[in-house]
């Protein structure tokens, strides 16, 4: 009894964590499912087929995954470069208009996705810009940008500015200092910003739905099939993305711990 009372917060915390994982377990379980009919979404029979042949039986799914990967990759590169430059300017320089820049970055994060998506739609429609791959890409870079800036800024805030000052004292110019000192130290922050960008883009439904025209991304495919019956292969993609992302994060942690150890030794 005493042990429970002493650790009650940890116990409650772990229960909450378990609750957060329940749907993940269901997604993984359903990826091994052989449903009786297209319209049931309950576990019927165990099979490896979905994992062995993810593209057969759900013909439109794999092209949609490819579209999402492409958009995710390009918008991550775009948002990460633009966002890192912005974060660096905001943290390392004093200049007029910083408050305005901060507000411009905060507002998209404080806007509901329906508003972001629908307002972009009105812009594209009134400019007669055809909806599709490019409009999705434009939208994704836009909403990923603020999250990149926040993440990179946090890393910059934790960095000792004296390291950069020392480089300058040793006659490195600004570009050399950025390239040789700041960028390597900033790399983990940039990497997590990129990972965040990619998962935001790959997973986005609402903004994409307004601006996709006839282009189908993976979430759009899932949404469409939710009405017609969900093929179990969809859960294979969901589980695979989960496992890959988890592996990347864990690997990043291990590399980080190794580096810290090497520095301490």
């Amino acid at each position, binding site marked *: 009894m005493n042990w429970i009372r002493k*650790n009650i917060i940890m116990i409650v915390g772990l229960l909450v964590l378990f609750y957060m994982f329940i749907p993940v377990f269901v997604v993984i379980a359903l990826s091994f499912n052989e449903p009786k009919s297209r319209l049931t979404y309950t576990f019927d029979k165990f099979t490896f087929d979905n994992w062995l042949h993810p593209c057969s039986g759900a013909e439109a799914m794999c092209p949609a995954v490819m579209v999402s990967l492409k958009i995710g990759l390009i918008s991550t590169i775009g948002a990460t470069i633009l966002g890192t430059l912005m974060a660096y300017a905001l943290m390392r320089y004093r200049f007029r208009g910083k408050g305005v820049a901060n507000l411009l970055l905060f507002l998209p994060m404080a806007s509901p996705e329906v508003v972001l998506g629908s307002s972009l739609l*009105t812009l594209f429609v009134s400019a007669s810009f055809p909806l599709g791959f490019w409009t999705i890409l434009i939208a994704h870079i836009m909403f990923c940008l603020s999250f990149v*800036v926040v993440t990179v800024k946090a890393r910059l805030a934790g960095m000792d500015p004296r390291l950069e000052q020392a480089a300058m004292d040793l006659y490195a110019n600004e570009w050399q200092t950025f390239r040789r000192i700041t960028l390597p130290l900033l790399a983990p922050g940039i990497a997590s910003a990129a990972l965040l960008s990619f998962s935001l883009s790959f997973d986005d439904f609402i903004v994409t739905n307004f601006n996709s025209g006839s282009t189908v991304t993976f979430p759009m495919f899932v949404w469409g099939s939710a009405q017609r019956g969900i093929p179990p292969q969809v859960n294979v993609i969901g589980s695979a993305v989960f496992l890959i992302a988890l592996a990347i994060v864990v690997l990043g942690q291990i590399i980080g711990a190794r580096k810290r150890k090497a520095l301490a030794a």
Partner: protein
Amino acid sequence: MTSKKWVPYLLLAPGALWLALFFLTPMFNLGATSLYDPSGSLETGYVMNGHVGNYVDALSEYWPQFLRSFTFAAIATVLALIIAYPLAYAIALKSGQWKNILLILVIAPFFTSFLLRTLAWTAILGDNSSFVHFLQNIHILPEGGRILATPFAVVMGLTYNFLPFMTLPLFTSLEKVDPRLIEAAGDLYSKPFNGFHRVVLPLSMPGVVAGTLLTFIPASGDYINAQLLGGIKDTTMIGNVIDRAFLERGAYPTAAALSFLLMAAIVILVASYVKRAGTDELV
């Protein structure tokens, strides 16, 4: 640090330009669209005549959905705060060497697609699921009672889906709390609850404010949960209305007015909330 004044502007320019073009301009466009003559259509084109009546129409027809969205989002936010606080507290102050692993575990579920997780809840809460049968057997739920397609399911989905947005800011502010302050409160004969109430809770307020905003804003505009977990009638949220008005009915002026009203309502709510809660450093 530098003598060249233009450097920061050069660094900011590409990103700022992107946001100006694809965030600010669309907002103005949305505002303009909301004032078009509603008798036009996408095919025939719209006439701009400052038709403020779109707002009157939008509000008089859809105020129940507005009200419902904010109610659902508010309940989900409070529930998420209650659920996330112990988790954030445990990770920040009780986890020791397990901190990083637990943090990864908080984020990990959200690497699975939002839609797939919500669809997983439809399987868990569906009418033939073992969970619902269990609740019926122990008479928490009446015979033939449902969870799916009820307001309860939608609120539950909203609560679940935005949990990390609540947990992470709470964790960030709780991590800054010096555990010695809690010990000091105990040394001064404060009861554990008082120590929490007087010391930890006030120190974690920035996290509470940030977390509630980050949960409430996306929850009030969301329509995925209402669509997948809700029913036909009393679960429709304003996001569903906006989505259908734009994409199915093509009623752009009304839809734009609704979208603009949602944004305005949220800006007002957020501003007054931040002012009352007294954390101006949020931006």
